[in-house]
């Protein structure tokens, strides 16, 4: 069902955890539907210098979370905002159709984290 890449990120997820003094936190999803992602970012000079995640959800949700933290680390805020669901799915070698919609919440959680960071900065 899942690609080898998905299984790799699911079984060996990168950047699991929280950032206690995060500059932004974003949460997306709903446990009653099965998937919730929480992304923590640390920003310096408009660049994401650290990122961690916590995820409640299926294999795809965990792999998506892991993948997006890898993609985003070291990127500028604008570069990070350009990452779409499709980018994440493609980087994972594809996701099953039914998982595209409900388990691919990484980009949304990231956007919320960036919003949180921006609202706090103001």
């Amino acid at each position, binding site marked *: 069902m899942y690609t080898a890449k998905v299984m790799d990120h699911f079984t060996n997820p990168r950047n699991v955890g929280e950032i206690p003094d995060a500059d932004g936190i974003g949460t997306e999803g709903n*446990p009653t539907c*099965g998937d919730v992602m929480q992304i923590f970012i640390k920003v310096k000079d408009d660049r994401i210098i650290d990122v961690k995640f*916590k995820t*409640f959800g*299926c294999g*795809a*949700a965990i792999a998506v979370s892991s993948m997006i933290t890898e993609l985003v680390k070291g990127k500028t805020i604008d570069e990070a905002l350009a990452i779409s669901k499709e980018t994440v799915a493609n980087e994972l070698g594809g996701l099953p159709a039914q998982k595209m919609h409900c388990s691919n919440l990484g980009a949304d959680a990231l956007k919320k984290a960036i919003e949180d960071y921006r609202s706090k900065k103001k």
Partner: protein
Amino acid sequence: MRKCYFDHVATNPLDRRVFDAMTPYFMEAFGNPLSLYDLGAKAKEAIENARGQVAALINSKASEIIFTSSGAEANNFALRGIALARQHEGKHVIVSKMEHHSILNSARFLEKAGFVVTFLPVDKHGIVEPEIVKKSITKETTLISITHASSEVGTIEPIKEIGRIAKEKGIIFHTDAVAAAGNIPVDVKELGVDLLSMAAHQFYGPKGAGALYVREGLRIVPLIYGGIQENGRRAGTENVPAIVGMGKAAELAKDEMAARMEQSKKLRDKLIKGVSGIENIYLTGHPENRLPAHASFTVEFIEGEAMLLLLAAKGIYAASGSACSSKALKASPVLLSMGVSSNLAQGSIVFSLGKGSTEEDIDYLLAEFPQVIKRLREMSPYAKGWGTKGESGECIPQK
């Protein structure tokens, strides 16, 4: 790596003895049972022999068994066949919320065709209360269908009591015994049922073979029309090898039932005891009135599909009623109807043992499962609890 198949409610491998019984009917005794010559007669005889074996498993007459291609077909046949045959007497049908999709969706089809269907609630253990069945009966009721045992939570329903009520009121009573027949004693006389569904692959018989018991004299409208196979009640060239296999599997299940049950129960109790030591994990279904090989839980703060995959990576095969693990992406309606909250339902996990399961398999599971839970909880934003409820009712992780 050790392989522990703990998903016997999903399906089972064919018993080698069943396979051996089937093989002659593929290439040698391949005749069409309707054919008049010896090849046909041999196939016909094999089917009738299997019919007797299946009847013996549930204490019915051979002539009361109609072979189908699956449990789902038997359920569709029963529900729609009786509702249609009796529609001039009334158009009300009663089912429970514990039913398999093949009953629920047949019931919804009947609703579209102008029938009224009552979907009975259940208690927290998934029990359909006979008193509630009784109260839901109207003058229009022609059919009650209640599952014998749930493959999702293992609960065994009070079929005998409901059967008594149905009989008193003169209402036809069907039970979906797909998860029960071949695994626990099922006796149509004792249960007082008019119809009963079975599937061979649930007791080491072949996929592609099911059966519907229809009490003698009961009229049923066919689901599959055509020739005069199965006494004109189910058309299509008979799947002779599969029917032979179902018969053999029924015979073996009957002979070995007591031993299989005893062994399963012992291992299952060990499993439940071992797993219950883990924090924030709850048994689902009835604690005592449950299938002897069935252990089902909800694990708080994590999701079922992720558990399944990590367990599978360890060679442990299980099932889940979580939304993500169902291809319809909905949490198990059975769990929800039992009052399990929809976030907790995501942590559903079901272990169903088989006749090949061993003590060592259980030990292995008890060693690996807590680690899987620990790993996933470490990743979960809810590790410390479901947190507060947001506006839309979702859980907000604690900061």
